[in-house]
């Protein structure tokens, strides 16, 4: 029991610094919800129903920007398809876990939790489970609180500050931090360029077209790089 408790405490402690970068994200998300006009409660429900900031921000801002429901949903799902990689990477570790945890665990699998657990894959199954749940639940609780705080701040901020522009700024930050080789630069530039050229397609479909063409371009560039 005492081992469990110290592992759980470690999970909470490790989660805290990793949550810090998510604070502006959560606040901006709360703001975006208040500006989108879809209703605070509906927008905030995504914090628990989706539990993934980028997808939630995507669906909220696209709905607020007048996109069709289908377009907003498919864009958000494409944004979160990277979780397939995490799922595949953790699958062997989860095979040693009880069924209930194999079903519940993936719900918490955000970028930060994945990063934390990659160094604990060799832990005893029970220890891994305790650590994973403690860190995951810490992220979850803080995320609910931060996005709720953003909802409260939203109406107070003057319209002319145009704080909604913080959303693309955050995405620029995420974009450049994820770039570790030039094929990814190709993917980003082609994705943006195509979305620009396809901007007048209805329902913001240019976003999906741009994303798909960008993915293809990046894959081709990778082939060229590897010769």
């Amino acid at each position, binding site marked *: 029991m005492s081992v469990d408790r110290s592992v759980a405490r470690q999970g909470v402690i490790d989660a805290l610094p990793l949550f810090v*970068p998510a604070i502006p994200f959560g606040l901006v998300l709360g703001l975006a919800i208040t500006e989108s006009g879809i209703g605070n409660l509906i927008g905030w429900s995504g914090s628990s129903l989706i539990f993934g900031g980028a997808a939630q921000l995507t669906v909220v801002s696209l709905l607020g920007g007048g996109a069709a429901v289908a377009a907003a949903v498919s864009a958000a799902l494409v944004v979160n398809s990277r979780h397939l990689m995490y799922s595949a990477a953790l699958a062997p570790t989860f095979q040693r876990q009880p069924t209930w945890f194999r079903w519940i665990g993936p719900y918490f699998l955000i970028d930060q939790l994945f990063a934390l657990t990659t160094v604990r894959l060799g832990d005893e199954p029970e220890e891994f489970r305790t650590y994973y749940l403690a860190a995951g639940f810490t992220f979850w609780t803080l995320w609910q609180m931060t996005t709720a705080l953003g909802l409260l701040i939203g109406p107070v901020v003057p319209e002319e*500050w145009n704080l909604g522009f913080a959303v693309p*700024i955050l995405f620029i930050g995420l974009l450049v931090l994820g770039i570790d080789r030039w094929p990814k630069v190709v993917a980003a530039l082609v994705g*943006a360029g195509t979305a620009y050229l396809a901007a007048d397609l209805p329902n913001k479909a240019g976003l999906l077209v741009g994303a798909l063409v960008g993915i293809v371009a990046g894959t081709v560039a990778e082939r060229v790089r590897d010769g």
Partner: protein
Amino acid sequence: MGEFLAIVVVGMGTYSSRALFIVALARRRIPEPLLIALQFVAPSVLAALIVSLLTDGQGNVAIGVPEVSAFVLGGAVAVKTKNHILTLVVGMGVYWLVRALV
């Protein structure tokens, strides 16, 4: 109601993408081409998303000197510091400053 449904569907889709291999396909390997393509999802989607967010209902992309300056300097700060808070502060600061000047 449509909006709530959208969030529910995105929630289910997000859970599915996280659970697929852990729950269902634990012994399957992801085909190599798919694995490579998945690495380019984030950069291309984020870049297309930024353009899309700056597009108004009529399909006009509203990007001017303030936006570009904020992206360039905010992006530079992100590369240098890897700090989201600093990126946000500098990006918004530059945006407001340039908007006031031009």
